């Protein structure tokens, strides 16, 4: 992994593969015949490969939806697994077209990396995983604990802020990958493993006895996770942004994988606009009129993707919570398709 990032760095330095600033990403993707999508190295629920190498997860579905609108085929995606610290370099250098890797939206990442966040796929927050045998019920009881963490994430800074803010001492052990950090936690090197709460549920599944470990109730940070694209190609930025919006809008309009064909025949003006029988909204994005139909047929609406990957229909069983639609008590909200 280290070698890869070095090669990329040198490539950026020599200006070999920097088509970003001027290139038409959509055209590049079409010419290539597949979308190159940066994902995690294996985080159940968000992006992880099964034993046949098929990637699934919420982050994966965002890329599949993009492939669906561009190629009418959600399978035309090449997934590039990236470590936390290599992800931005891979996007900057043009190795991937979109980074969909549970990445937290922060001001400094939005301004200094030469990339833009296109929306929020999952509202998350940082939490703590502990062994039940420690009999700890609150993160405020963690004074003098040893904490395992993956390096290269916002997690390390939140952790420092939280312990300092609550006047507690701790020891941090930072590992290159989440797997190594979890292994050290399991071997007893640390009392606590910390990352985003969704990640805690996902990593807990990998432990020998998931039932022996508990996620503490405190959520110590705001972690809005979303996809990123490079600066300099507004068309591509709009496209990725609206694919996600369309998934949320589709749920709000009640368009599901099952009823999408029926809905397309509906006379309701908002459904006609969204599903392309009225106007040319898809074409304004550089796509086809049936773009929303393609998304919903490919991966379903936002709610369906959520349930299948991280919600009740998955092993993780995470409640919708903040990620419920705005009119159902959550904060997922998309501008209207019109």
């Amino acid at each position, binding site marked *: 992994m280290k070698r890869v990032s070095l090669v990329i760095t040198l490539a950026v330095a020599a200006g070999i593969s920097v088509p970003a600033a001027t290139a038409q990403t959509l055209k590049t993707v079409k010419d290539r015949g597949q979308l190159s999508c940066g994902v995690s190295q294996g985080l159940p629920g968000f992006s992880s490969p099964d034993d046949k190498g098929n990637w699934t997860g919420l982050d994966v579905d965002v890329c599949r939806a993009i492939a669906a609108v561009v190629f009418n085929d959600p399978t035309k995606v090449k997934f590039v697994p990236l470590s*936390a*610290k290599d992800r931005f370099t891979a996007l900057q250098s043009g190795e991937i077209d979109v980074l969909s890797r549970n990445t937290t939206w922060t001001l400094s990442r939005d301004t200094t990396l030469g990339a833009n966040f296109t929306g929020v796929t999952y509202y998350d927050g940082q939490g703590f995983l502990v062994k039940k045998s420690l009999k700890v019920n609150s993160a405020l009881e963690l004074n003098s604990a*040893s904490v395992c963490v993956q390096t290269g994430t916002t997690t390390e800074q939140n952790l420092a802020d939280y312990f300092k803010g609550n006047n507690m001492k701790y020891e941090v052990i930072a590992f290159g990958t989440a797997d190594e950090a979890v292994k050290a936690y399991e071997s007893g090197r640390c009392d606590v493993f910390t990352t985003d709460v969704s990640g805690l549920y996902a990593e807990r599944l990998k432990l020998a006895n998931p039932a022996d470990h508990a996620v503490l109730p405190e959520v110590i940070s705001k972690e809005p996770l979303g996809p990123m694209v490079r600066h300099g190609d507004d068309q591509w930025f709009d496209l990725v942004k609206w694919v996600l919006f369309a998934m949320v809008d589709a749920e709000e309009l009640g368009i599901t994988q099952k009823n999408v064909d029926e809905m397309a025949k509906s006379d309701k003006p908002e459904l006609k606009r969204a599903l392309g029988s009225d106007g040319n909204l898809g074409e304004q994005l550089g796509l086809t009129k049936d773009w929303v139909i393609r998304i919903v047929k490919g991966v379903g609406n936002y709610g369906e993707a959520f349930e299948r990957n991280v919600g009740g229909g998955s092993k993780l069983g995470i409640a919708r919570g903040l990620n419920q639609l705005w009119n159902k008590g959550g904060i997922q909200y998309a501008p209207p398709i019109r």
Partner: protein
Amino acid sequence: MTSHPRKPPSQFLPKLQRALGGQAGWGGFVLQLAFVAVLVWVSFEIVSNASENLRAQRITSGFGFLANTAGFDVNQSLIPYAGSDTYTRVFFVGLLNTLLVSLIGIFFATLIGFVVALGRLSPNWLLARLSGAYVEVVRNLPLLFQILFWYLAVLAALPNPRQSVSVFGSFFLNNRGLIIPKPIAEAGLEPFALALAMAVIASIALWRYSLRQLYRHGKLTSVWPYVLGLLAGLPLASVLIFGVPVTFEIPVLKGFNFAGGARIIPEFVALTLALSIYTAAFIAEIVRAGILAVHKGQMEAGSSLGLGRGAVLRLIVIPQALRVILPPLTNQYLNLTKNSSLAVAIGYPDLVSVFAGTTLSQTGQAIEIIGITMGVYLLLSLVTSAVMSFYGWRLGRSLAA
């Protein structure tokens, strides 16, 4: 017209020509100039192209980030460090951790390497076979696996803090590391250090005096009782007059972990173990080759003078072998330092982990940070090389004398 003796033509130009162009003369000089110009042009293009690309993509560049607050913590630091310090401070924390593990690794690798090499050359069948097996097993397994092996093996073998292995109630061993009493300087420290230094200097002087007696007059003088007396007596006197130099802070179990005391983290132990054991296998082969390169007659000559095997090795064989050993040994030292960057796999906070890892991904300034990190490793390697060359030069001089 008086004839002056003709002045010899000035040697300046031909000398300059030779110095600049070598045997190829001015043509060679022009060629070199052209080569340097091309090199400068290429590097200028790379730098300007990179900065232009970064600007075009609005990626922040430059070294301003070094003054920003780091905001994360590190679990081993040789200098005072807190999350509110700058990235520059983080850089030095990482650098010192790399240096620490490298220096201690080099020390143990050399020690183990020499012992194994002598073992392999020993007439004792079992010892020779064991040493041979060590070399063959260790040098044929990838280093990363060995690091992970030692880390997981060390961790698995150790109990949790509440069931620590305790020695005298003040040393504790558990899976958080080895916790030892922390020395705290007292008023008596300075006189104590001074007394110790005086004792050491006096002992060295005595030892040299005895050597001179031996070489000049062939007299064996035994100075060790005086040396012992000096080394023990002077510091003791200082303690009696000025009080104890240090007191110890005893660690106490508190909550999850021990409070007070100093701690050696298991990541450091595992990394040092893996690096020294791995590199020692290569050093052993280098030392063995060096010893075998010394002519057999030298050893026989030593034996015929009545010297024992140890004395022959120490006084005759190893000094000559060192000339052969030194250059490849330097390579191994450089390798060990560079290999220490595998630390990130087990969470040891070395330069690559905290600077080229966390700092890089927090600031996103890959080119600057990778550049600085490569520069540091280059500098470390050049310094190691220079020190070893100097030692080699001194050794060559003393052998030639």
